[in-house]
């Protein structure tokens, strides 16, 4: 094989010089750059021309050449690159080192394989050490990740438990704080047919809420967005866009039941405490306090209070369905509304605000239907409220 032939030819060049260096106590600074040759029996290093050029003439005269007999040479690998070959004499007070390619091969060749055996052992040992270190680093990284995941879920769980101990008045305070940030100019008057309509639905559903004594209030805001949300403490906002979009009063009741459930299940507070809990946990681990303050101020904003996890959405769906059932309304009117939205305006993004933040609607429809089947059979009456009048008043 030609490749091999070339290599062997090069290796056997008796005058091949390598650039390297020497460590010896006789050298000022202890180290000097050297040209290295390997004779059949010795490694010979002489100060390189470069090194001599910057040396005091009196010192040059004192510079010897350094020799290590191959028979007593001990080799090692190291250096910044990990590929530098170090040759030491028996007393280990003289070191000749070289990083050049081919040096190790020539060394092995000249020593009749003895030194390449040694180098091979060193390489094997170092590879083993690296391997072990990498193994433990991986174990460490995986353990840290695992702890992080466990920590995350325990914080979430702890936050849920902690909420139970917080009085409802806390929800109300946070809710009214957030309510102040909502634009009031677009709010419809209390005697507007739309406001009366939603208030009546809320009054109808109220006795069946998980926390009936909660102070439910609902306002209607003039906006083309199809959206509705509940704040902690029971304050709700319905956009006129949603009322225009709804086909029946039952569908509006479905949305409201869902939103009321968010309030009674205290999802807003849960969300805040979870994010605060996670930030607090991060702060404990890393020691950064700035983020906590920033998040605290953010928590008062509506966005964080009204965007829930999928789990919370599903919970609110089922609790809403329960409320509707007990109020004598069809629980499936929750699914009916967003089913209609999805079908009609699937490609208009603005319309999908209420739906997009919610779980996959096929899953929701399914889980609501499943839940309905577990409920006692009941004749559902219609909601005897006139949505058409409301919609006309909004034109």
């Amino acid at each position, binding site marked *: 094989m030609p490749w091999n032939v070339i290599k062997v030819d090069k290796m056997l060049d008796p005058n091949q010089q390598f650039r390297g260096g020497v*460590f010896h106590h006789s050298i000022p600074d202890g180290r000097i750059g050297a040209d290295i040759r390997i004779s059949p029996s010795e490694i010979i290093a002489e100060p390189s021309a470069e090194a001599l050029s910057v040396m005091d003439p009196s010192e040059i005269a004192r510079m010897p050449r350094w020799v290590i007999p191959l028979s007593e040479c001990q080799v090692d690998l*190291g250096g910044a690159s990990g590929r530098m070959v170090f040759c030491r004499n028996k007393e280990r007070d003289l070191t000749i080192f070289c990083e050049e390619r081919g040096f190790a091969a020539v060394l092995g060749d000249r020593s009749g394989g003895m030194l390449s055996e040694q180098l091979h052992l060193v390489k094997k040992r170092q590879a083993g050490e690296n391997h072990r270190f*990498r193994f433990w680093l991986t174990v460490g990284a995986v353990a840290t990740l695992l702890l992080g995941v466990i920590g995350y879920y325990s914080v979430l769980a702890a936050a849920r438990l902690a909420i139970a101990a917080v009085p409802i008045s806390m929800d109300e305070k946070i809710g009214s704080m957030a309510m102040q940030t909502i634009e009031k100019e677009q709010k419809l008057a209390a005697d507007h047919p739309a406001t009366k309509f939603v208030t009546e639905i809320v009054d109808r559903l109220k006795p069946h809420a998980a926390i009936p004594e909660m102070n439910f209030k609902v306002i209607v805001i003039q906006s083309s967005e199809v959206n509705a949300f509940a704040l902690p403490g029971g304050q709700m906002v319905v956009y006129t866009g949603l009322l225009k979009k709804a086909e029946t009063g039952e569908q509006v009741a479905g949305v409201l039941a869902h939103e009321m459930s968010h309030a009674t299940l205290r999802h807003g507070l849960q969300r805040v405490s979870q994010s605060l809990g996670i930030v607090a946990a991060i702060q404990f681990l890393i020691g950064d306090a700035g983020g906590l303050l920033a998040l605290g101020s953010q928590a008062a904003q509506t966005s964080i209070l009204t965007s829930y996890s999928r789990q919370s959405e599903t919970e609110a769906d089922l609790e809403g369905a329960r409320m509707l059932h007990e109020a004598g309304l069809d629980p499936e009117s929750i699914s009916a509304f967003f089913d209609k939205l999805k079908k009609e305006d699937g490609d208009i993004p603005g319309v999908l605000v209420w739906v997009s933040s919610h779980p996959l609607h096929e899953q929701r429809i399914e889980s609501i239907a499943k839940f309905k089947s577990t409920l006692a059979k009941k004749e559902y009456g219609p909601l005897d409220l006139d949505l058409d009048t409301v919609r006309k008043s909004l034109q």
Partner: protein
Amino acid sequence: MDQRPPLVSSYAQATLWIPRMPACDLIRSQSLNFQYLSTFTTMQYDLVCRPASTAVRFALEAGESITCEVGAMIAMSSGITVETTSKSRGGGGGIMKGIKRMFTGENFFLNHFTSQQSQQTLLIGPTLLGDCIHHPLRSGSMVVQGSSWLASSSSIDIDATWRGFTSAVFSGESMFWVKCSGTGDLFLSSYGAIYPIQVDGEYTVDTGHIVAFEDTLQFKIGKAGKSLIGSFLGGEGLVCKFQGQGKLYCQSHNPPSLGKLLGPKLKPR
């Protein structure tokens, strides 16, 4: 060998702009009797205002040139020209080396200061408060932590070297380091004090405290104590272990710790 007048004679010129730094008063009296720190070096330099806010003052003769980190120049005489390129003076490198250098935390460009007249002075200093040192590079190469390279003779090649992914992720050190090779003078800066260590065998340095080390030293990441958990609880975490024989420069403070201390106290924008 050197027929030039000693730097002291050109000192009067240099003092013209030194007195503005009050901390230098004490140092000035000392530097009057300074001599060449190394008999080898052909470059005349003086480390002023040591050790807390060190600057390097060069006395350049006509045609002499020095390569500096971008932004390092504090002041200079009128007879010095500045050339900014991504190449080393010797013509080595180019755009690729410039890009590689950026990964180390250094700048894409290098500034070459060339004296057009005799007896010109150039004053350069690092970004962070701290010391500077001179390292005569005689053979082989020096591996320098990104931001510690300050200046070097134009004969020295400045390149980036890959230090490995693991060490970067776990030690917080840079993935690339600056590799200076050739024969000439190297000026390194530190955050805080700088101290040289002649390693023979093994030596451990906390991450972030390394300034530079010779190519004969092997650098590995390891744990400070026997147990990994203990190492972290002790606040030392992972450390850098040096093996072999050679010179190592360490700094007394480390920039990431300062960042951690100040970062959270800054107001968000």
